[in-house]
């Protein structure tokens, strides 16, 4: 079965008892057991819940894996993956990782005696140089935030295989519609399901997907022991969102590509960062690694200072001023003032996050309406 058919049917089998086309939402916290010492399929909702299990089955299929775990947020999923490591071991992560992942690695994971080194994941030699005998996990993200940097996942997988470490990919920006890292050799795929998977700005959720049963068992043990599971109502909403995932992502990519091309020709814009533009440094790899579009996130830099940029992001009538991404509503933000405000100016400069940078999350609105909105806002 093809992707969309699986998104609709895998994990959504007809309910045997009622015949319901859409599986019921199981809100139960506990399940009645056949006899003392004898366990049914589900016992306690932290350990497993039918509604969450349905979602996990769909996610595993869409990512080309075999098992998935759904979490209360993307951060809960990432945290679970890092807990595979023990004191004395080491993580290498890309420099363009999500800010919350940076915070987790440097302020929480390090407390357990796990060391972290960041390296530019577009530069394989730099990544390899950061690997030590203690390294167990390589963590990358593509496209990266907010410059839409592209990391070659297959090349990283080859490196990880050679150095016998796990490769985990935060696939939030690309979604399994465009990129399936497990098929490229990664061992773990992580998602903030808050974004494209849920797709409607109304759920916080996260996921880990793997192909290897033994790795799944270890992650499952950690999830069950630490408890950051996704609730049944939110599991239902993410499952519902997955049914239109491909339609949404493909359409959003198409609009993002057209907006990038439009912005590129506007004199008020200094440069546009979108992997779908041939001038983007990651374009070639993206063309190989992303299928059906180059993502629906794009950034651009204004010919203007911090204040001018602040005015522009406040002047849109359709784009809404908010962090987060991946949903049906288009969002706009100024990384220097919002998503990356916690970086000090020197760190921002080092990451190429200028005061004039604007990040867009392109939603489902009509291209013409979004273009007109940006066109008028750029004059603010």
């Amino acid at each position, binding site marked *: 079965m*093809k992707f969309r058919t699986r998104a609709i049917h895998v994990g959504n089998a007809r309910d045997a008892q009622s015949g319901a086309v859409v599986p019921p939402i199981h809100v139960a916290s506990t399940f009645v057991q056949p006899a003392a010492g004898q366990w049914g399929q589900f016992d306690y909702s932290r350990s497993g819940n039918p509604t969450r299990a349905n979602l996990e089955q769909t996610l595993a299929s869409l990512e080309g894996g075999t098992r998935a775990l759904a979490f209360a947020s993307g951060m809960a999923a990432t945290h679970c993956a890092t807990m595979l490591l023990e004191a004395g071991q080491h993580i290498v992560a890309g420099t363009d990782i999500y800010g919350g992942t940076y915070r987790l690695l440097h302020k929480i994971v390090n407390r357990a005696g796990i060391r972290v080194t960041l390296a530019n994941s577009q530069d394989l030699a730099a990544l390899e140089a950061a690997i030590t005998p203690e390294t167990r996990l390589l963590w990358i993200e593509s496209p990266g935030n907010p410059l839409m940097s592209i990391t070659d996942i297959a090349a990283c997988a080859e490196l990880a295989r050679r150095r016998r470490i796990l490769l985990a990919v935060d696939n939030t920006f690309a979604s399994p519609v465009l990129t399936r890292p497990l098929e490229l050799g990664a061992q773990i795929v992580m998602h903030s399901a808050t974004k494209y998977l849920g797709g409607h700005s109304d759920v916080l959720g996260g996921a880990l997907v793997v192909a290897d049963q033994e790795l799944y068992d270890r992650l499952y043990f950690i999830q069950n022991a630490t408890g950051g599971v996704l609730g049944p109502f939110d599991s239902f909403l993410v499952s519902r969102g997955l049914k239109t995932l491909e339609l949404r992502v493909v359409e959003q990519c198409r609009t993002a590509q057209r907006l990038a091309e439009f912005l590129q020709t506007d004199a008020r814009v200094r440069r546009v960062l979108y992997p779908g533009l041939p001038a983007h440094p990651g374009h070639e790899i993206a063309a190989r690694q992303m299928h059906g579009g180059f993502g629906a996130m794009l950034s651009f830099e204004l010919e203007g200072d911090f204040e001018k940029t602040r005015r522009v992001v406040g002047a849109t009538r359709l784009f809404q001023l908010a962090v987060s991404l991946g949903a049906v509503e288009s969002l706009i933000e100024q990384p220097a003032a919002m998503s990356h405000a916690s970086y000090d100016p020197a760190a921002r400069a080092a990451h190429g996050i200028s005061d004039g940078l604007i990040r867009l999350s392109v939603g*489902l609105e009509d291209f013409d309406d979004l273009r007109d909105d940006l066109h008028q806002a750029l004059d603010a």
Partner: protein
Amino acid sequence: MPKPSSLVQGQTRPGFSTLAVHAGESRQKLGDSITDPIICASTYTFESTQAVIDFIEQKLPREEYGRYGNPGERVVERKLAQLEGGEEAILYSSGMAAIVGLLMSKLNAGDEVIFFDECYHRSREFCSKHLSRFGVVTRQVPACDYRAMEAAITPNTRLLVSESPTNPHLSVVDLEQFAAIGKDHEIDTLIDATLATPYNLRPLDFGVDFVLHSATKYLAGHNDLLAGVIIGARDKLEPVRKLRGILGAINSPHNIYLLERGLKTFELRMQRHNENGLRVAQFLESHPRVERVYYPGLASHAYHDVARRTMTGFGGLVTFLVRDADWRQTADVVDAAQVARIAPSLGGAETLIEQPLVMSYYECSPEDRRRFGIPDNMIRLACGLENAEDLIADLRQALDA
């Protein structure tokens, strides 16, 4: 009451998907949320006695009690009205509740209503078995026979009703002619456009007075809620809304939220339903075991020209006859389907298949089924959002089984 987003009120009409995402919503929402909150209140509080008196005397636009309206419901009503190009929309707990709500409001004892005879069997049943108990006379004329409809009009006729496209034959009404009959005789017209949706057809643009949808179907789109809606001019709908407040067939805030969420992807979903419907219809037409396909997008369809003139696309519903098959052999095709699931309804992400003889007309006499045009070898397929290749492969194996 929140103001609708300024963009959507602006001069130029925004694109359809922009409307689907934003229309009817206020840009800045309660709690600064990006999405509308689900307000479960059964009742709404007043600050003081004076506030109650002001509300009653000045007819202030605010909520009072759950049966009369809910803030989330008003958002979706505004969204649906804008998508349909109408002034006002009223939501109901189901499509049938919407039909009943309108008919009960518009018809009195002694009044007459004229139907085109191809229609959802429960609408027919409500008129013939229940409205008749209140002294309302229902006349049925053959679908798309405008002369017969005009001839059936009497001084007591109050409403002309049709579906378009009709279920399950997918006949397409020429809305110009239909609306003109109503205008000429000063009789209100109602189109149940459930199978078309405002993406494919906008009956109000043709001068029809009321549009009705089972929002259970494409509007909600995920086979996970029931809802109905009537759209039309505000003054004509005012008594309908008042009656809803008395009869109480309102929807729930949770359902309404899911409906709103479903509408966000409305354009994308309809494009896919249209594509899947057409490709499946073309496949079926070319299959030796298929005797006939009913799909307005096929040149062979009796109403193809009207459909092409008035509709953007033709939807996901495809009806076909299995060649030389009795009811059991037809049922075997239905039972052999693996992607499509056996169920009534349509318009959701999951493809559904059914044999009208069994699903909706099992208890009808063979004469009645002949009269309604439901042969034993008829199958109705409601294409969902799956990949067309998978649907076609599924049908091929089911027909070849």
